[in-house]
């Protein structure tokens, strides 16, 4: 990212972590969302679900020699199990996800549409994609938080009116966390909630591919 004043991946993760409430069960998508686990505010009990059958996924083992090949996240990174965690099989694990037990899923995104449609599994010109659990989790979670850069590498907006990328799940995204802003997806359209320190509202508007409601007060992302 050559633009100034953009949040780092870890700073976005820190902001997403603030959004996760005490007692929630949360699934973190592979890639950037995984970083969220490192920024959970102290005192908050967040339980992490990994679709490969872990409830109560804990952080990477402190010592490499404690890495267990049978205890990996969905993103294939080494993890631990917290006390009181449990192992379940794949069908049960997706029953948890599809059945609405996930209070939130944090997912990477290529595009989000104003009705909450999410695109994150396949590029438009690709013959196919690696869907993994994205469609099940996006369709099933109570809240989907999209976590992404505000614009694509070429500068095209990823927050758009309607998807041009292949759909992952309809009307599922409730909030978007980017390197520039926090944008809520509401029945009345996108609402700008926060901007990154040093980023102006105008810059966010310019980088967004759809109408953005600007409330009287726009917060600054704590980063």
């Amino acid at each position, binding site marked *: 990212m050559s633009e100034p004043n953009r949040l780092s991946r870890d700073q976005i993760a820190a902001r997403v972590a603030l959004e996760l409430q*005490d*007692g929630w*069960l949360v699934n973190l998508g592979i890639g950037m969302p995984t970083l969220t686990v490192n920024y959970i505010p102290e005192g908050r*009990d967040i*339980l992490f*679900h990994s679709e490969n059958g872990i*409830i*109560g996924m804990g952080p990477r083992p402190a010592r490499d020699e404690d890495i267990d090949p049978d205890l990996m996240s969905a993103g294939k990174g080494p993890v631990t*199990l917290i*006390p*009181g*965690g*449990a*192992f*379940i099989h794949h*069908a049960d694990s*997706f*029953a*948890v*996800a*599809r*059945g*609405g*037990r996930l209070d939130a899923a944090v997912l990477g995104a290529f595009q989000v549409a104003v009705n909450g449609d999410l695109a994150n599994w396949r590029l438009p010109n690709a013959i196919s994609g690696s869907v993994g659990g994205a469609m099940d989790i996006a*369709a*099933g979670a109570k809240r989907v938080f999209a976590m992404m850069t505000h614009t694509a590498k070429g500068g095209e907006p990823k927050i758009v009116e309607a998807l041009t990328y292949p759909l992952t799940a309809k009307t599922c995204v409730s909030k978007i966390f980017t390197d520039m802003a926090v944008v809520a997806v509401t029945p009345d359209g996108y609402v700008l909630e926060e901007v990154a320190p040093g980023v102006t509202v105008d810059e966010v508007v310019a980088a967004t591919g759809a109408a953005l409601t600007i409330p009287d007060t726009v917060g600054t992302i704590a980063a």
Partner: protein
Amino acid sequence: MKNKKADTLEDAIARLNDGATMLIGGFGIAGVPEILIEGVCDRGLRDLTIVANNSGTHKTGIARLLAEGCVGKIICSFPWAVESFVFKELYEDGKVDLEVVPQGTLAERMRAAGAGLGGFLTPTAVGTDLGAGKAVHEIDGKEYILEMPLKGDFALIKAREVDARGNLTFRMAARNFNPVMATAADYTIVEATTEVPVGDLDPECIITPGVFVDCYYIAGPYVPGKEEGPRS
């Protein structure tokens, strides 16, 4: 950590309301949350829909709920046991509705609700009275009917061990409907025999992960107040 423990029976069942659909675990005398049911009786709720394997036997448990006029409808697989005389009398008087569901379909409908499915195709009950009016799909020359998920506002279940996260184990055939019902309700209340510290349960042997449990009450091993003797 979310506090799921109810210190009193009253607290455990405080959320229940008139008109609610309640999934109640158990098969025969095994795995029935008897203490919770007694508590519900004492609350004097009305118009409950009860989902269970049977329609209550003798005079306690679901039979007492029926006798005290709390129940508007029963959804079950086995309503007409000889011991279900309380239900039989109310049904014949037109005071309670009944939906009979094949036992496997009953379990699967609750599993579908818990798994976020919109329904499933089953060969069970095709061509029978209990399949009447349901859409028939023919797949590879075999007939199936479409069954819908069955969701509870509340599940009342019986477990053996519980920890503060709500993780559960069961005991032998007292497992039965309990784990499935735990997944299928908006709010799941557990009557457990004993509480263990978090981390004591083997993560390979937890049958119901705590994410399905909203509230638990420790009833201990002793089940008091039964007219027909212990546990019957």
